[in-house]
């Protein structure tokens, strides 16, 4: 029988943490990337340190993809909990692969295929240890999905070579046992098969790894940080690799010390950064104000998680936007960027360094748990697109006339780094100051200097560097327009495509710069939109708040704080709802906002 081929597959693997769930899913990803396919993943982490339910979903496609998929085509569950927790995420006609012969009740559903496989028995019989059942499963999945055997073998060699020949041999035995079992026992027609592409193989990395690589590409000199989920991998990667390219790394005693170190290094003229999550950003907000006041560049990556307080440390949310834009006492301008994909995480960190340096203020890159932990394929030539501005020190003036905070048309003043000889010595202070940097609290000076600092944001919004950063898609003259940010862009893009296929015209814009808002891109979109929909993974609608107050628009909100990303289905349903009420009154819109907030 000829095996059916597909160009797309969504696979979910679930089980107890420690059963090798991630190894299976991760291996499928690595091989698919080497086959030149596009892929994106989603995984959840148990809050426990050891044990607890664990899941990873991956979606592979010939076409570029922006989302890990709503429903799995295939669910592999190693235990009962894995089946029960994830069965609803398996599409109706999907295939459930599970441990054969266990007493666990399996939910029955018409249309769903069931494929019990004795992973454990094969592992014990062939390898001699039940622990190898995940490798047996990998062999079976590899055979069923048409993953090239030599790729899988090579991957295991890379992974287990260090553990010694015996370990590697056992794993290879398990893999081949899986191949044989699938060959002999499973009717192939049940499952689709992935075709290798002629395209070159792709890089596979997480959002956190991409952010760290972006920092290295931007020439970061110093990293200061304090561990926090879900951003720690950024600091771990840099702890290992920043010294290898000649940089310096310091784990500090808390986030205040981390941002203070960044502040000191930046004042000394070096590119410096930190990475954190919401609780850390809260602690940093005082020094963020100091950076704005002393006009120093700094890059802060915030991988958002559920809040407030300790909240949902391992779950995703988009609730630090307003903290990023406004969080500090007084009025402290800063740049806020929001990547939507792994690749953009790399690019936005580079952009953050460039913009922070040029406009002499902190830049926050807002990621989230989904994006941080998502594995995604990235083109191998990603660095060729990256442009780096080098640190700007201007020693154009004679020392006697040098003013560190000189008033200029753009608001940007010449920077001289400490250590520069010739009589430039000046002081940077968090006190309000005059052009020379000396404290000054006169009636006029605070107004003049506040305006100077904010002028830089206005200049930034018109900088050619940021032109065309927002992505737009959908039907250009549609009445319904969606604005979203960060990782929500993935499901929105899918929902828009599906709505258009259903005959509902809709368009979308994803701004990548959230502070300052770039009027030249947002205004035309908003003025051509009759119904504005803003889906966000937060409770109150933080981008909605910014859009409402800046542009006097009335967005329809779609908010969710479930700790997991939107499904494109959620957004599609909202689009259908909005489209169905095309003659809706203003009152109706308000009603919807209340509903979305759960207040009605």
């Amino acid at each position, binding site marked *: 029988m000829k095996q059916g081929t597909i160009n797309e597959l969504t696979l979910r693997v679930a089980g107890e943490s420690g059963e090798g769930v991630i190894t299976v899913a991760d291996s499928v990803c690595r091989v698919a990337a080497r086959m030149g396919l596009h892929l994106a993943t989603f995984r959840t982490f148990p809050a426990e340190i050891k044990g607890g339910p664990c899941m990873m979903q991956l979606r592979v496609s010939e076409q570029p993809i922006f989302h890990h998929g709503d429903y799995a085509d295939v669910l592999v569950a190693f235990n009962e909990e894995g089946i029960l927790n994830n069965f609803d995420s398996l599409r109706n006609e999907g295939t459930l692969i599970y441990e054969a012969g266990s007493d666990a009740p399996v939910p029955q559903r018409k249309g769903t295929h069931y494929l019990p496989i004795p992973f454990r028995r094969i592992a014990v019989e062939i390898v001699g240890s039940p622990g190898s059942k995940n490798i047996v499963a990998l062999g079976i999945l590899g055979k069923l999905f048409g993953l090239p055997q030599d790729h899988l073998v090579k991957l295991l060699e890379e992974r287990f070579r260090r553990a010694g020949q015996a370990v590697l041999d056992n794993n290879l035995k398990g893999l081949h046992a899986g191949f044989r079992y699938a060959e002999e026992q499973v009717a192939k027609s049940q499952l689709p098969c992935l075709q290798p592409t002629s395209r070159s193989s792709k890089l596979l990395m997480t959002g956190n790894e991409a952010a760290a690589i972006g920092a290295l590409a931007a020439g970061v000199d110093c990293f200061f940080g304090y561990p926090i989920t879900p951003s720690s991998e950024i600091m771990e990667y840099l702890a290992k690799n920043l010294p290898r390219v000649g940089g310096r790394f310091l784990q500090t005693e808390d986030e205040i010390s981390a941002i203070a170190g960044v502040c*000191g290094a930046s004042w000394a003229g070096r590119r410096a950064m930190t990475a954190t999550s919401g609780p850390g950003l809260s602690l940093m907000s005082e020094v963020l104000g100091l950076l704005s006041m002393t006009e120093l560049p700094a890059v802060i990556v915030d991988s958002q998680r559920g809040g407030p307080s300790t909240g949902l440390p391992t779950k995703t949310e988009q609730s630090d936007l307003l903290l990023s834009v406004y969080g500090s006492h007084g009025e402290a301008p800063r740049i806020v960027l929001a990547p939507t994909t792994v690749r953009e995480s790399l690019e936005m960190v580079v952009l953050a360094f460039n913009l922070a340096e040029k406009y002499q203020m902190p830049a926050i890159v807002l990621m989230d748990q989904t994006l941080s932990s998502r594995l995604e394929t990235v083109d191998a030539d990603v660095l060729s697109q990256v442009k780096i501005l080098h640190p700007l020190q201007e020693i154009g003036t004679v020392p006697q006339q040098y003013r560190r905070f000189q008033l200029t048309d753009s608001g940007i003043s010449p920077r001289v780094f400490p250590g520069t000889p010739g009589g430039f010595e000046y002081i940077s*202070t968090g006190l309000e100051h005059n052009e020379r940097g000396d404290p000054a609290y006169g009636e006029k000076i605070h107004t003049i200097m506040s305006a100077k600092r904010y002028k830089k944001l206005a200049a930034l919004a018109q900088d050619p560097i940021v032109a065309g950063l927002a992505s737009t898609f959908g039907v250009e003259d549609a009445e319904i327009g969606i604005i979203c940010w960060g990782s929500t862009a993935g499901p929105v893009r899918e929902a828009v495509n599906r709505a258009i296929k259903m005959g509902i015209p809709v368009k979308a814009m994803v701004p990548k710069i959230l502070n300052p808002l770039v009027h030249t891109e947002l205004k035309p979109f908003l003025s051509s939109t009759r119904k504005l929909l803003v889906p966000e993974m937060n409770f109150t609608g933080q981008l909605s708040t910014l859009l409402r107050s800046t542009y006097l628009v009335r967005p329809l909100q779609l908010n969710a704080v479930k700790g997991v990303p939107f499904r494109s289905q959620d957004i599609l349903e909202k689009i259908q709802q909005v489209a169905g009420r095309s003659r809706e009154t203003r009152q109706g819109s308000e009603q919807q906002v209340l509903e979305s907030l759960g207040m009605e």
Partner: protein
Amino acid sequence: MSQVKSLPPAARFRALREAVPGGASEREEKQMSMECENEEATFQCYLGNLDPVWCPGCGDFSVLGAFVEAARRLGLPTHKLALVSGIGCSSRFPFFTKAYGFHGVHGRALPIAQGVKLSNPELTVVVPGGDGDGLAIGGGHLPHICRNNPDITYLLFNNAIYGLTKGQTSPTSPIYLSTKTAPYGLMGDAFNPAFLALAYGATFVARGAAVKREHLSNLIEQGIRHKGFSFIEIITSCSSFSTKHVSITNVLQRMSFLENPPEDDLEALRLAADRQSIYLGVLRDVERSTLNEHAEKVQRTSQKAGAATVEGLLRQFA
């Protein structure tokens, strides 16, 4: 100069600064071109644009004088001098000196200074700050700075009170002091800063007093010369909020000078904690790998198989 001596402190500094022949305008030019990089450097080279704003009778004038004298003797080039401070009366210090200065937020001077030093080892980094800045709001950083051992000199002005905010309790306020925030008596015993720094493992710990300027100047000079973190507790007084009796009288009546650092840590701790005598001098002077040395070692270790490139690192994701 004898005329200068009779002036109140702020005016004295102004007079000293302007004592350069030719008056203020010529002074500016002279200062700009003056290379303060050798033993010939004058006191004036290290004075900043602004006159001290401290109250008459404040001990901080004396500390500023002692620091400038130490810098002069060391021939520190002003462009390589980075003064980093937090908030408080003593934290205004960088404004009154000629150097690159950073006056940040309350309690964060040490971690900011650590960032400066880690990123640019060429700079001589000195942190002036008060007991509230360093031991209350910033108290959590001190043990870690001691542990990291960056080559920074910390001048902890201990006047046992919050002066800038006008007379509230500080973590070094003695139990018998009545303050605006403890009108019915203080809670808890005062910190002993030098004792804490010894316990935290600072590699150079000394105690000086504003009333003993020459001695203090020597300590600061040794502190700056020391490779690693130097903690210098400076007992000083607040003339406005009545800690004169706490510090000056105490010191003058009970001080005792150490000729050499004690032989071992226990002896150093005992002397620092002594309740009868106030020991002034160097309590510890040992060498240990500094933050920057460690960073260099990490770079060497990580590059054993050769330095990495970003392109090379990216290929690991293939």
